[in-house]
């Protein structure tokens, strides 16, 4: 199975690899997937004034999983939380030309965005309380 050029590019030159401080109030962390299924994504966002200023990822998985998570770090930056929540897996899959057998990688990346935003929102609520 040959990989699409964009997948190879993200795999070889991943954007925004790394970690933000998960205890920072302005950081939301999403950890999705499972080691037993062969893919785990950690996506972190830093939010300021309702806008995603920065994003970081680490991924355990195949090249398409790495590329999907690398791509979403680029997609979410500069968006507000509501806009980021509208990112659909189909857009990720289309951008990377993922074959059907790899669609779950893009679904996992969408889940990672939602989980990171939820974590951020939870932190804000618990601070308000």
């Amino acid at each position, binding site marked *: *199975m040959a*990989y699409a050029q964009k997948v*190879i590019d993200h*795999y070889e030159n*991943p954007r925004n*690899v790394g*970690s933000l401080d998960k205890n920072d109030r302005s950081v939301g962390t999403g*950890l*999705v*997937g*499972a*080691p*037993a*299924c*062969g*893919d*785990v*994504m*950690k996506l972190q966002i830093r939010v300021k004034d309702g806008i995603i200023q920065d994003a970081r990822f*680490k*991924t*355990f*998985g*195949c*090249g398409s*999983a*790495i590329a999907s998570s690398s791509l979403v770090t680029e997609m979410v930056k500069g968006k507000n939380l509501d806009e980021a929540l509208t990112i659909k897996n189909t857009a990720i899959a289309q951008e990377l030309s993922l074959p059907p*057998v790899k669609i*779950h990688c893009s679904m*996992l990346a969408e889940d990672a965005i939602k989980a990171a935003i939820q974590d951020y929102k939870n932190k804000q609520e618990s601070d308000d309380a």
Partner: protein
Amino acid sequence: MSAQIQNTSCSHPSGVIYLDYQATTPCDPRVVEKMIPYFYENFGNPHSRNHYYGWSAEEAVEKARLQVANLINANPKEIVFTSGATEANNLALKGVMKFYQDRKNHLITCVTEHKCVLDTARHLEQEGVQVTYLPVKPDGIIDLDKLESAITEQTALVSIMAVNNEIGVIQPIEEIGKLCRSKGVFFHTDAAQAVGKIPLDVLKMHIDLLSISGHKIYGPKGVGVLYVGRKPRVRLVPLMNGGGQERGLRSGTLSPALCVGLGEACVIAGEEMTQENTRLLDYRDYFYKGLMQELDEIYLNGSLIHRVPGNLNISFAHVEGEGLMMGLKDLAVSSGSACTSASLEPSYVLYALGVNEELAHTSLRIGFGRFTTLEDLRYAMKRIIAEVKRLREMSPLWEMSREGIDLKSINWAVH
């Protein structure tokens, strides 16, 4: 010719180093040389009894039959040419069970067998055969006591592979053979990965049926052998109907070129096995130690001691195997087994050893052989170490494990 190929394996035109010798092997140039005359000059049908062309082709096939027989200490009359080991395994299992089904209806095999044995066993189950699938110990070897207690009055056949295709472990064939013979049960072994790598003697090891594949032993693809013992005599129902070639067990015109190639491959295997094993064992030790020096948390799957020299199956914790292979595109290695890697499911063989699911997803099979050079392995080692380190830096699991988080304590959403 062969020397030339040996020297160029590192700079193969594709730029990709071949390290997948359990999937297939290159045809030895000495084998190709012997085959060539049988495509054009000597093209006869070996079953034509009335003229020179037929006789000459038949002579070549019979010589090849003797060469195969010699390697495993069999009689040439016990050698049945097939299209490969898959057909040989099908013929052994279906042939025996169908012939003896009225009297004995029980087959014993093992969970780590090749798919062509397991799938045949499943098929036989649907036809009413009782099948026992023996487990393996964590090192991949079967428990002889469990085998003994599984054998009943109803058992017709025990089929246990000699060497596993994914993890290279060697089963105690002689002990299994003795046990089966003492119980009056036929013993079949799929020796596709064993021939030419470990000494095999069908008499000493009490083997009644044995499968060989041409292309796993530097011979051509499309040819194999089923050894069918005559003392005691094993009777089979053939898979195909036709002209009754191969003592009625396998109809169809033989390909003299393929038979000659397999015969020559067996001759070379017999002559060079000892020195080849010594060399490959040195290579393997060098390679495995080199990886262990540079990388933490790598785990060998299957026994190191009871293992053929040209196989390593290693889990690189926290780095997913398919992702790793993508970074090693100048190395031809395998993640899971080559036969099942299209399914993206982790290997059933590793599950059978009790390897946990995460580690099963992180395994690579590295297979080397006759044409692998030390430079090939040096380069591969360097590349694997660099890529595992790069991907671990990107792995959330590696990060968590460094932070001392027990991955089992996390409530993963299994999808």
